[in-house]
């Protein structure tokens, strides 16, 4: 068993709570930085996507996990960031100007989208964000002078001080932005703003009676989450070097929500785990599609079963079906996501041999009636 000894209030305010976590996150960062020297282009590419998804995931964790607001329109924020980058790059603006600018612009849009959140809750808010995403999709298709409509547009490579940012450059930029976003997120969580978020999430009535201005913090949460997603959008545009409206659909927004459902809704580490999962699921499915029919054929010994299986797996919608099953599985069996699983395993080792299975069992919730309005 390990105990934490506190010697002052300052300790609880630090970015890292223990020297061990400084060490482990440091090692992780070093490994990521060393990866290009070891890994091939395919894996670097995958890591870049994981980082981009992590950034979006963190934005969503703050919005949904901490502030308790739903959004199924985050693909639109990603699109705004991406198109801002594409247009700025077209005119030769250096990336160190338009990266922050895209973040701020998307943040502003997010703030505006947050305004209806003041009156809407839960599913109604989700629908409002969905409507917003549809509007953005429509604008992208129609505003041809800026977006080149449904044909999509090429994204010029980013340039820094006249130098083109190559594959490695983009990779390191992604690491930098991810670290920046994580630090901002941790800062928010340990500051009064983050506490206001969770107060709103758990009881808006009580939060207001504690002096928390609910309107202000709800719109802040949207602005912050959107701003982060806008940053990710810039990276996304450069990674793909071609963007078009059909990339930013509801399906992508749902993938983003899945990141946090699978990773753990109120956990930054969960966002990263969820991102890894979401990026890995595709190659994994391809692998399964390739190998499973042969395996079935070998087991059953019938070529017909093998053919049937491969046809079935190749059917459109299999991916959606599997995604759906995964979500249901997590909601029922691990509502705290991969991060929750991680915590349980960690606690098991820490407490060995005294682990109690009931440690993570939730107590009965008491009735919350008497809610004002």
């Amino acid at each position, binding site marked *: 068993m390990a105990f934490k000894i506190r010697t002052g*209030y300052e300790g609880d305010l630090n970015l890292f709570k223990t020297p061990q976590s400084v060490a482990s996150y440091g090692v992780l960062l070093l490994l990521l930085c060393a990866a290009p020297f070891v890994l091939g282009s395919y894996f670097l590419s995958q890591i870049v996507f994981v980082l981009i998804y992590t950034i979006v995931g963190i934005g969503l964790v703050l919005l949904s996990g901490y502030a308790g607001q739903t959004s199924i329109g985050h693909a639109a924020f990603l699109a705004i960031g991406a198109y801002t980058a594409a247009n700025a790059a077209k005119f030769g603006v250096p990336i160190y100007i338009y990266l922050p600018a895209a973040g701020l612009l998307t943040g502003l849009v997010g703030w505006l989208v947050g305004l209806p959140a003041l009156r809407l809750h839960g599913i109604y808010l989700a629908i409002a964000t969905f409507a917003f995403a549809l509007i953005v999709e429509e604008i992208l298709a129609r505003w041809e002078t800026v977006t080149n409509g449904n044909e999509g547009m090429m994204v010029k490579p980013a340039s820094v001080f006249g130098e083109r940012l190559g594959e490695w450059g983009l990779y390191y930029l992604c690491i930098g932005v991810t670290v920046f976003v994580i630090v901002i997120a941790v800062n928010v969580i340990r500051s009064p703003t983050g506490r206001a978020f969770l*107060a709103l999430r758990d009881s808006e009535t009580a939060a207001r*009676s504690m002096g928390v201005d609910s309107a202000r913090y709800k719109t802040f949460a949207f602005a912050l989450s959107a701003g982060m997603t806008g940053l990710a959008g810039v990276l996304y545009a450069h990674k793909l070097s071609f963007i078009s409206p059909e990339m930013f659909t509801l399906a992508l927004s749902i993938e983003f929500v899945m990141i946090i459902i699978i990773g753990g809704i109120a956990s930054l580490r969960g966002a990263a785990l969820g991102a890894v999962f979401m990026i890995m699921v595709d190659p994994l499915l391809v692998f399964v599609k390739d190998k499973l029919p042969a395996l079935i054929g070998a087991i059953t010994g019938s070529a017909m079963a093998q053919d049937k299986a491969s046809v079935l797996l190749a059917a459109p919608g299999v991916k959606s079906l599997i995604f759906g099953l995964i979500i249901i599985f997590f909601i029922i069996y691990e509502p705290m996501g991969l991060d929750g699983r991680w915590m349980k395993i960690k606690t098991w080792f820490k407490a060995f041999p005294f682990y109690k299975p009931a440690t993570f069992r939730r107590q009965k919730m008491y009735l919350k009636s008497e809610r004002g309005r």
Partner: protein
Amino acid sequence: MTYFALEDVSIQFGGLKAVDGVSFDVAKGEIFTIIGPNGAGKTTLFNLISRLYNVTTGRIVFKDEEITQLNAQQIAGRGIARTFQNIELFDNASMLQNLLVGRHRHSTTRFWEDLFFLPRVRREEVGHRHAVEEVMEFLRLQRYRDTLIAGLPYGVRKVVEVGRALSIGPEVLLLDEPSSGLNVEETSRMAEWILEINRRLGITILMVEHDMSLVSRVSDRVLALNYGRIMAMGTAQEVQSHPDVVAAYLGA
């Protein structure tokens, strides 16, 4: 100067006058208790004071300011804190975080300062922590510092809610049934705390309570409410022996 007063306050929900022409004033440093049968309008009265409900008619005045004009989040800023009858804690946050939310009105840092956790934010946080630790020590809550509210027993949650209200640094504390659901021992401890909050911290207390022994033990004055109207007001003894009150409680 008026310290705290309700002037002819009413609220109507459709056809129901839940609070009907209630006037009283509370002096600084007093413990003022509101009793009455279920559905009398006691909680509604608190919701009116904390601005969760809008008055239909009448005014509520605190330190010569009409607080009926303010919104709910400004009430805490004026130093009026409250607890809720059915416990409205932030269930998925730790006890410490719950109390720290109470410090919200004292933080002066801006949103962007929080984003970068500037030195000023850190300094203020340490200050908040000091304040909250004092509250914890006062209510003997230290051992639950990092426990999630969802994992705390009911009796402790009741105390945490009082602690969260105290973290605001209030001048006036509204307690909605502080002893409901507590056992005899917990109730008597709650009574001591109420007295101490009043005497040692000098906080004016408005309380809704059913437990008459607790009421007589701590209250300076008692008001009895029935169907939203005032039945009787005076010392605990006077109110308890008032014929209307006796009749209301016996259901006659």
